[in-house]
Every structure is written in C-alpha cells, then in structure tokens.
C-alpha cells in the first residue's frame, strides 16, 4: 500500500503517535437504535499496524460498531479518534473520514456498472477519467480476484458470484488507499483457497495499517494473530492477544463461548 502517505500522517501527528501507540481509539461507545441498546460502553483501541479480530455471537453488535466507526450510524455516544483526531470533527466531514477508514460491509453490494468501474467507483471524477488499469489490477490482485476476472473486466459486476462480489467490494475499498481497514466477515462465502489468499493479503496490508476484521471463524481469528476482541450483547467481554485469548481465556464467558459457542453475559 501507499507507505509514503501513511508515514506522512504519522509524522504529522508525530508527537501524539509516540504518546499513543494506538491509531484508532474508541472510548465508551454506546449506541441506541429504535430505543434498543445495541452497544454498551465499548472501549478498545487498534495499534498502528496489525490485524485485530472482532468476534462474538450473532447479534452482538459487531456490524453496528463498524458502522459507528465510519459514522454510518451517527447517533452514538462516546469518543472515537483516528490518528489522534476526533472523527466527529474530521477535516472534510464524514465523506473524507470514510475514504480514510475503509469499510467492507457484511453483505456485498456491487453497483450496476462493469467490474472495472466498480473497482474505481470511489475515486474522484478526474481520477476515473485517467487510465487506472494498473491500480485496478493491483487491487483485484490484493483481493484475490484478478485471475478470475482479468479477461472480463468490462462485464457487468452483478454477473459475479456472491463470493466474487465480496472480493470485488474489498478491491473497491482498497482502490481508495484507506489508512484503516474495517472488514465485516470478508471471507464468509469464500472457498478455503480464496480465504487463504485473502488472509495472506491482509497480513501484507497490515504491515503498515491497522485492520479490524469481524469473523465468526475462530480458527481464522487465530490465524490472523494480532489482538482478539470478544464482544457479546453489545459489550466488550475480553481483549487479548490471539494466543493468550485462545489458550488462556480469562473470563468465564469467553471460556463458555470458546467451548460451546454460547454466550450468556447478562
């Protein structure tokens, strides 16, 4: 990825970054939707590089948390800062924040355009006018999709399979060269081989950016290394490095979840 810009931002915030090794920081995030409490006092931070896995049972509020991080939900309480800047007062507003923090949604949604146009969809009009073949190739390769689509780049994107669409969404987000990546079950409908390729890509990308990856696949969370954040019922139950988390879970709820995949945290 674009290392220069990344270090540039670190230099800009040099002093702060040294004081805070975390790049993304959430403090006491609470969210209420339709009078239902979805997130309760969630706090954690993502280091400047490396993958963090977010796990938890269905309905724990993982997707909702990612939406809060990019202000897709904007009625949350608390403080979120990225690169030391409060996301509420992000320079350039929510649109600029969302280009900085890439989010790949749980359910893939390709736009009614060609595969090629989908990859460059988020670029500015000027950039879209220019020839972006190399960028498209690089992003599709990073998303482990290039081999399958390289000779039908100008076919409509909705002719792709769901798993391919999911990878296309990843490529589309990567084309914007975000500085943080939030992934919501990026490998949910993929075969083991593509899964492996994506994980390799993520390890590669994570060398110079923080990645937060929601997953239901505990083995994947183990493979991704980094820290594991375990959420249940809108609360963070335990945060630990992957090895510690899976080998010596501290909390009773975590042990229950790891053993029986149930979580009773009331």
């Amino acid at each position, binding site marked *: 990825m674009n290392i220069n810009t990344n270090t540039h931002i670190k230099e800009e915030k040099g002093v702060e970054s040294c004081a805070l090794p975390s790049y993304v920081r959430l403090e006491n995030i609470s969210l209420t939707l339709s009078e239902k409490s979805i997130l309760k006092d969630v706090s954690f931070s993502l280091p400047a590089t490396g993958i963090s896995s977010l796990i938890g049972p269905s309905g724990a509020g993982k997707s909702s948390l990612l*939406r809060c991080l*990019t202000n*897709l939900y904007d009625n949350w309480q608390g403080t979120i800062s990225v690169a030391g800047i409060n996301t509420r007062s992000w320079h350039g507003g*929510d*649109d*600029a*924040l*969302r*280009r900085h923090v*890439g*989010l*790949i*949604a749980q*359910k*893939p*949604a390709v*736009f*009614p*355009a060609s595969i090629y146009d989908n990859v460059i*969809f*988020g670029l500015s009009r000027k950039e879209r006018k220019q020839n972006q073949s190399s960028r498209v190739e690089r992003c599709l390769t990073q998303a482990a999709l290039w081999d399958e689509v390289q000779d039908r780049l100008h076919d409509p994107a909705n002719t792709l399979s769901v798993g391919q669409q999911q990878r296309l*969404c990843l490529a*589309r*987000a990567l084309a*914007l060269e975000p500085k943080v990546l939030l992934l919501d079950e990026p490998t949910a409908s993929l075969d083991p081989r593509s899964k492996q390729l994506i994980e390799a890509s993520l390890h590669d990308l994570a060398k110079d950016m923080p990645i937060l990856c929601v997953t239901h696949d505990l083995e994947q969370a183990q493979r991704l290394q980094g820290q594991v954040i375990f959420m249940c019922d809108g609360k963070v139950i335990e945060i630990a490095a992957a090895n510690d988390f899976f080998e010596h879970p501290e909390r009773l709820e975590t042990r229950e979840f790891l053993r029986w995949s149930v979580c009773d945290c009331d």
Partner: protein
Amino acid sequence: MKVFLSLLALPALLLPVACFLYIIVQAFPALDWELIVGSSASSGAAGNLFGDAANAGHGLWSQISGSLLMMLLACLLAAPIALSIALFHALWASPRQQRMLITLLQVLQGIPPIVYGLCGLVLLIHLLHWGISLAAGGVILAVVILPLLSSNAIHALQRIPIEQTESAKALGLSVGAMITRVWFPVAWSGMLTGLLLAMARALSETAPILFTATVFSGVLWPDSIFSPVTSLQTHIFYLAQEGSNAHVIDVAWASAAVLLGLVICFSLSARLLRRYEESS
C-alpha cells in the same frame, strides 16, 4: 369452488375486453388514417354541422396534439417536484415526517380531480387572469398527477437495497454523487414506470381541464401556452352532448378509440418496464 371463483372473476376479465371491442366497433365507421393525422375534410361534416367554419376541414390531429401537449407540460412541471419530494423523503425526513408525507399524498390522491379543476379556475383563471389556456390545463393536471408521481418515486427509491446506499456512503461518496451514481442507475426504471403511469393518467383526466384549458373547436395549434387548446378527452365530451347526429357520435367513438390507444400505449410501456425491472 375453483370454478365458482373463476366464474366470479370472469366479468373482471371479459368486461374490459368487451368495452375495448365495443369502442373499436363503434369507432370503425369514422376511424381512418385521415381522421387521425387529418388535415383534410374527413371530419368536416361534423364541423359543418355546428356551422363552425374554423372546425371544418381538420381531423383529430389538433385534439391529439393538444392532449399530448398538456400531458407533457404537466409531466415537465410535476416530475421535478415529485423527485424532490421523494429525495426529501429518503434523505432528510424523520420517520414522523415520512409518515405524514405518505398520509398527505394518499389524501391528495383521494381528492376528486374536478375539485382541482375548480381551484384552478378560481386561482389561475379568475385571480391570475391566465384565461382558458394550455398553461392552466398543464398546471392543473400537474397538481392532479403529483401525488401519484411522488408516491411512485418514493417507492422506487425505497426499493433500492440498503446495502447499495451504505456501500456508496462507505466509499466516501457525497450525497449528490450517491444520488446520481448509485440511486438513479438502480431506480431509474421504477421512476420511469411511475412517470408513464402518470402520463396515462394525465391523458385520461377530463373534468379538471374541461372548463380551464380546452375549447371545442377553432384551435389547430395553440399560439402560446396562454391560449386555449382542444383535447381528445374533452372533444369526446363535447361531441357526446350533440347526441342527435349519427356522424358526430361516430367521430366521438373514434376519438375515444384514439384516446384509449394512447393511454394503453403508456400503460403497456409502463408494464413492460416493470417486467424488465423485476427480471433484472
């Protein structure tokens, strides 16, 4: 049971077909190409009958063009407003405002069109002195079709999957870019379907333009939007009032057939478009 229900449903199927055939049969004596595009004297007899020199010597062309002109004007006026209403509903309205807006549109759709005609008469013609004119007819028809057009546009936008909207936002697209680059490409067919249905509606509406926009005869092509027009719908009404002459009635039936043909054209294209939308 099934047979019984089918028998009950039969009139619903047969009646429109019967009506359609009946109109065609009735229209047949007077219906020819000359009458439709006619500038010659095919309906001249009818004109002469009223002793109206200006009406003599032309077919239904001026009525057809009058109807279409008014319909176009109405759509040109109503479409942007309906679109704005739909966008307001989708982007900025609170759930409460959304409910209120939907209710309001339903109420407006329930108002008999002649009431709009009356309001138009008082407001546009008496108060603003527009006179009986194409403009008055267009504006009134625009108001008549606006609720229909707006609720169709709202539904077209509501059918856009939420994932599309969220993905567009997540890519940092501004609201304007999201509307033009994601919403319209996804929803255009639904919106166009609504527009075609509204066009059919505007073509068939008679009461509100009867005393605000049209005259029986004497107009080939309106000079300006502030001059009166003739239209197919009202032409039928005027002709039918002169029930004594057989040829006049034939021309009325022919007008009805032409009008029906136009309305069916718009409705059928709307249907086809919906079919296309559902298949893709």
